[in-house]
């Protein structure tokens, strides 16, 4: 099953799965974050393999660069670097493993049915900025603007939540906060 595959793909996939497993199982949250960043790097490499160069770069910048750094910040801020998490019982582990495993089986089976129908029709250069930009600003221009609004809303929400509470009124937004 694996012998015909190119070596780079095998190595990358192996590293991806291994690091993601470490994310899940690591006792130390900081290690988890670092492993996740590594996972994102391998996924970016997969993007390069898949001729999605622009996506690979964006993935590194947004995920590994921005989001994961945010996670790290929060971890440091809350001083959770040392392990404080109570260990769950074995029962939970088994239940979670069975559920996730059955999900894996079912989704795989589902793709077995549908995946064969995918035709191989590679087109040169769709992963480049020029091609993606053309699609993004023509057909998807309305969703694109909507995501802008979503971002704004998320930003306002985050700022609002993060404000130090006064008189327990933390969840009641001020007028200018709600409108900006």
């Amino acid at each position, binding site marked *: 099953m694996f012998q015909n595959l190119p070596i780079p793909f095998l190595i990358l996939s192996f590293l*991806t799965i291994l690091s993601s*497993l470490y994310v899940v199982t690591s006792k130390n949250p900081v290690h988890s974050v670092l492993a996740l960043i590594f996972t994102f790097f391998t996924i970016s490499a997969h993007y*390069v393999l898949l001729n999605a160069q622009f996506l690979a770069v964006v993935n590194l910048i947004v995920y590994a660069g921005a989001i994961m750094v945010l996670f790290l910040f929060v*971890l440091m801020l809350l001083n959770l670097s040392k392990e404080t998490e109570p260990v*769950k019982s074995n029962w939970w582990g088994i*239940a979670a493993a069975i559920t996730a495993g059955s999900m894996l089986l079912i989704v795989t089976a589902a793709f077995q049915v549908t995946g064969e129908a995918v035709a191989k029709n590679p087109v040169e250069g769709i992963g480049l900025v020029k091609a993606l930009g053309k699609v993004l600003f023509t057909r998807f221009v309305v969703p694109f603007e909507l995501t802008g609004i979503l971002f704004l809303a998320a930003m306002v929400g985050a700022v609002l939540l993060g404000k130090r509470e006064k008189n327990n009124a933390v969840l009641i937004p001020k007028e200018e906060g709600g409108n900006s």
Partner: protein
Amino acid sequence: MNLLSIFNQVEISHYIYLSTVLFSIGLFGVLFRRNAIILLMCIELMLNAVNLLFTAFSTYMGDADGQIFVFFIMVVAAAEAAVGLAILVLVYRNTRKTDVSFLDQLKG
């Protein structure tokens, strides 16, 4: 552009397996871990698995739409991470804990 002529050697089904495995690992983490930050990270992992699958399909079918969707998912993930972490900080500030099993106030 084609650094490795990967189409001739890797089938789409391999990418499907890979991303499904990644997704299930993330799912397992969501179910198994109790630290809310790890939970959020696992969700990011699951989203990335989906992103990978989107990109794979996009490339194999020669259609850029899949990659556009990856952008959108990234946007949503970023927004989710920002708001989620803000909530987490707030919760921690009030309870000194990030343990989700402690948060059972949703009971009606």
